[in-house]
C-alpha cells in the first residue's frame, strides 16, 4: 500500500491541477476519514488511519513540487551505503531503568557536522561537456558522440519547453532536472529548471518560495524574460497570497 502511485491513489490524472487534486482529496476524505469508522472494531479503525495517511501523502506529492525523491526530505543524514531496512515486526521495548545522567543521547547535528567535516565535496564536473570546461583534444568519434548527445538533449529540452507552454509543469520539471543533472554547467537548463519550479510554487500559492526560484533562474540567465515578468508580477502584487488557493497544502509539510 505504501508504494501506490500517488495519482492512482487519488484516482486523478497525473497532470491534474492543484485544484483538481484538492477537490478529489476532499471528496475522498469525506468517505475515508477514520472517524467514519469510529464504531467499527479497532483493526478497521487502524486500517482507516493508514488509508487516510496514504491519501494525504498522495495529495502532498501531487501538489508540492518536491526537489527530492520520495522519502529524501525525511532523512537528515546523507544517504550512506547501508543495508536496506527490513521492517521487522515490533519488538517489545526494554524497561528503562537507566539513570538519565548516563543515558546515551540521540544527536542530530553533532553527528552531521562530524560527517560533513570528514567528507570531501563531490566533484562538480562529472558528465559536463558544456562551454565552461576545456575539453581535451577530441577524436572524431568523441565529437560525433558529443554532437548526437547534444542533439538528443536539445530534443528533450524542446519537449520540456512545449510542456511548459502547455502548463504541464511537473513533466517539464522532470525533464529539465535530468538535463541539468547531466550537464550541470549548461546554464539554460538550470535557469529554466528554477523558473518552472517557481511557477509550480506560484500556482500552489507559495509566493515567497516562487520569488526565490525566479531570482535563482535570473541568476543563471539574467535575460530570461519569463522569469523577469513572473517575478515582477509577484512583487507588484505585494506578495499577497492568491485567494482561494493560498498555501492549501503548505501546512501539510512545514519544515
Amino acid at each position, binding site marked *: 500500500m505504501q508504494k501506490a502511485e500517488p495519482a492512482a491513489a487519488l484516482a486523478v490524472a497525473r497532470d491534474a491541477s492543484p485544484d483538481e487534486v484538492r*477537490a478529489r482529496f*476532499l*471528496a475522498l*476524505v*469525506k468517505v475515508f*476519514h*477514520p*472517524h*467514519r469508522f*469510529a*464504531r467499527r472494531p479497532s483493526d478497521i*479503525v*487502524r486500517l*482507516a*488511519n493508514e488509508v*487516510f*495517511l496514504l491519501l*494525504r501523502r498522495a495529495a502532498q506529492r501531487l501538489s508540492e513540487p518536491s526537489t527530492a525523491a520520495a522519502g529524501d526530505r*525525511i*532523512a*537528515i*543524514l546523507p544517504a*550512506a551505503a*547501508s*543495508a*536496506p*531496512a*527490513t*521492517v*521487522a*515486526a*515490533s*519488538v*517489545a*521495548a*526494554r*524497561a*528503562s531503568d*537507566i539513570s538519565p545522567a548516563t*543515558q*546515551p*543521547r*540521540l*544527536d*542530530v547535528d*553533532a*553527528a*552531521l557536522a*562530524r*560527517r560533513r567535516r570528514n567528507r570531501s565535496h563531490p566533484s562538480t564536473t562529472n558528465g559536463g561537456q558544456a562551454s565552461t570546461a576545456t575539453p581535451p583534444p577530441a577524436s572524431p568519434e568523441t565529437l560525433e558522440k558529443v554532437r548526437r548527445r547534444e542533439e538528443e538533449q536539445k530534443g528533450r529540452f524542446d519537449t520540456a519547453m512545449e510542456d511548459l507552454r502547455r502548463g504541464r509543469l511537473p513533466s517539464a520539471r522532470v525533464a529539465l532536472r535530468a538535463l541539468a543533472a547531466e550537464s550541470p554547467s549548461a546554464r539554460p537548463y538550470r535557469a529554466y529548471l528554477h523558473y518552472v519550479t517557481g511557477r509550480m510554487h506560484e500556482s500552489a500559492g507559495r509566493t515567497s518560495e516562487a520569488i526565490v526560484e525566479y531570482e535563482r533562474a535570473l541568476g543563471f540567465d539574467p535575460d530570461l524574460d519569463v522569469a523577469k515578468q513572473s517575478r515582477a508580477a509577484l512583487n507588484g502584487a505585494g506578495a499577497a*497570497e492568491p*485567494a482561494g488557493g*493560498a*498555501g492549501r497544502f*503548505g*501546512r*501539510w509539510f*512545514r519544515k
Partner: protein
Amino acid sequence: MAGRIIGIDLGTTNSCVAVLEGGAPVVIHNQEGGRTTPSMVSWTPSGEVVVGSASKRQMVTNPSRTVFGVKRLIGRRFDSPQVGRLAATLPYQIVPAKNGDAWVRIGDRDVSPQEVSANVLRKMKQIAEDYLGEEVSEAIVTVPAYFDEVQRRATRDAGAIAQLEVRSILNEPTAAALAYGVQKQTEQKLAVFDLGGGTFDISILAIESGVFEVLATSGDTDLGGDDFDRRLIDRMLEEFALAHGVDLRTDAVALQRLKEAAERAKIELSSSLTTEINLPFLASGDGGPLHLLRELSRGELEGICRKLIDGLEGPCRQALSDAQMEAADIDQVLLVGGMTRMPAVASKVVDIFGKQPSKGVNPDEIVAMGAAVQSGMMGGELVEVVLLDVTPHALGVRVTGDRMAVVIPANTTIPTREHKVFATTDDDQSYVVIEVYQGQGERASDNRFLGRFVLGDLPARPAGRVRVDVSFTLDADGLLEVTALESESGRAASVKIEAASGLSPAELARLAAAQP
C-alpha cells in the same frame, strides 16, 4: 443496535449537553430547566456527593469541600507553575498524588481531577438519559484546542470513570465551527475566538465542500474568566485590608463570597455601566462586624483587567501567522464562551480582526451543539461533512543538549505520520533512549514529557554511524505511536505513547465500578 452518542461541553465553569435530533443539534436542559449546569462537585459532611446547581448553592457554606474549576487542574502536575498560582487562590486544598499529578483533598480523602470531572460527566449523562428515555453509553467530550496529550487523556479517563465511552475528544473551537458551519453550508474562512472560564483558544478554519479544516490553533490554557474574577477579588482584598487592616485571604467563607460577588458583578457589567458589590458581615474586626459595600463601574473593571484583555491579541496573531493569513482574509469571527460577552473583550476582537463577530451564535451552547454534530458524523447520520483537525503543539524527541528535535510540527493535520533519522553520539553505543516530548519550547525539559522507551542491541559502530529512524504516527483521535528502527540490523521497537501521568487502568476500573 447502537445507542445515541451525546455531545458534552465539559466547561471550566459550566457544562452543557446536546444530541442530534433530525439532523440538527439540540441542547438538553436539566431538571431545573437550566440549559447549562455548573461544573461543580461538593462532598457534604455526611459524605454525599452533590453536583451542579446544588453544589453551587452550598459553595459558600462548604467551601473546602466544594470543587470548582477543576478543568484547570486536570492533567497537570502539582509542581507546575500554573497549579502553584492556582493553589494560592482556591478555598479547597490541592495536594500532590503519588505520581506527582495535582489532586484535591476533600476531608481525609485525596481525589483526582478525573474523578471530580467524572461526577460532572455523569450528571450530564443523566440529563441526556432523562430526556432521551434511553441509556447512553457513548459521548463526544470537548476540550480546549490547546490542551496537551496528558490533559486530553485525563479527560478521556474522566469519561471512563463516568461509564461513558468517549468516542472522540473534540477541540472546542472546532466544535463551535462545526455547529455554525453545518447550518450555513457556505465556503468560508472562520476564526473561532473561545474565551471560557479557564482557557483561551483561537482557531482558524477553512470550510470547503463540507470539509472543516483547521488551519491553525493557538491559545492559553491558563487564561479565562476566572482570571478576570481573580483580578477583581485581589483589588477588593487590597482595599479591604487597607480600610480595615484585615486580610481576608485566610477566610475561606469570605473568599467564596467574594468570588461569587465578583463573578456576578462582572456578568452584570456586561449589560450595565455600573453595579454594586454588597457583602454585609463579610468579616469581624475589633469594633464589630465589617461590611463591604462598593460601587464598580464597567470602566474600572476594564482597567483592572486591562493586561488580560491585551494578552488576548498575541495568540490571535500567532494563529493568523501560522495559517498564513491576514485578518482581512477571515470571513467570519465566532465568539464562544461566556467571557466574550464582556464588551471590552468583544471590542478587542473587533480590533484584531477588523470586523464585527457573527451574531446568532450562543456562546454558552454552541460547543455542545458542535459535539452533537460530530456525534452525527461518527454515528453515520451526517455524511456530507467531515472534520480535519490539527495537533496544537509540536511533538518530538529529546536530543543532546536537552534540545527538542521536532518530528511533528505544531498545527499539522491529523492523522499524520512523520519521521526523522537520528544518529548515535558515542562509539559502540549499544542502545538509544527515545524520550518523547510535546510543546513549543526549544529545550525539551521546558515541554511536556509524554513517555520514553529504549531501542537496544544496536550494532557496534563509531559514533554517528548508527542511524535510528524514529517515526511518529498520530491517529485521528490524537493518539501517538512512536516507532524506532535501526536500519542495519533491522532492530525495531515501538510504543503507544500513553501519557506518563494519569490514572492506571486498575485505578480507573476501581473508580468506574465505585460510581453509583
